[in-house]
């Protein structure tokens, strides 16, 4: 397994009670949060939509991980993730998604981010806790366990 490090999750980038009309709306909301925290330029949002049209970012456990295309790395200012929960569910090409983890990464940063995230979600209890968390702090401690331990 690759070395581990806390996921770059800003508390301001967590939304527990979002709702979206459809998949593109959910992705655009993730993109706007990444823009708001200063992680990406606004043009990253369109790159996220383009990536999703190329191939679904659904990974299982009701989770999708929208992110930009390779060409959009230039508009990423710093590595970041955002977590948007859609309790009402979003139809994701036939799959039901209740958690979107938007990802922005420079260089090869995305591989480590995705690996970290996947290792957490592979534990069904952690995945369920993420879907059901009532507090932003719970989401932070689930995704940044090492930071919490320090």
């Amino acid at each position, binding site marked *: *397994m*690759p070395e581990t490090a806390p996921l770059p999750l800003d508390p301001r980038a967590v939304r527990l009670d979002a709702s979206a009309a459809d998949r593109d709306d959910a992705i655009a909301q993730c993109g706007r949060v990444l823009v708001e925290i200063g992680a990406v330029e606004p043009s990253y949002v369109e790159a996220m939509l*383009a*990536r999703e049209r*190329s*191939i*679904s*970012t*659904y*990974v*299982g*456990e009701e989770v999708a*991980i929208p*992110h930009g*295309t*390779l*060409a959009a790395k230039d508009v990423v200012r710093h590595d970041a993730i955002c977590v948007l929960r859609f309790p009402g569910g979003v139809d994701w090409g036939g799959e039901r998604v209740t958690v979107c983890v938007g990802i922005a990464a420079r260089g*090869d940063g*995305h*591989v*480590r981010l*995705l*690996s970290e*995230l*996947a*290792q957490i*979600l*592979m534990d069904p209890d952690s995945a369920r806790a993420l879907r059901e968390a009532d507090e932003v702090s719970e989401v932070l401690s689930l995704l940044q366990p090492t930071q919490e331990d320090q």
Partner: protein
Amino acid sequence: MPERTVTIASRTGLHARPAKLFVQAAQAQGVPVRIRVGDGRPALATSMLAVLALGAVQGTEVTLTADDGPGAEAALDSLAALLARDLDAEEASGA
């Protein structure tokens, strides 16, 4: 047990898009295939999360294995060939 060792060619590693293409190809095989990095624990090649968790970057050597049986060799050949291609380059040229 049949196996193939192959180096990840995709320039951004076995991440979201290349991983998805690999998992879809694994799901289309008639036999269960596992993938591991080095001496690591074998993961189901049909699980997106398990494949992402490997954290394989460009240049990482991965080993594909399948149980002996009809179709096993062909499945491994097909999946190994996929990993040996730069799937990101195909996106760049095909977009």
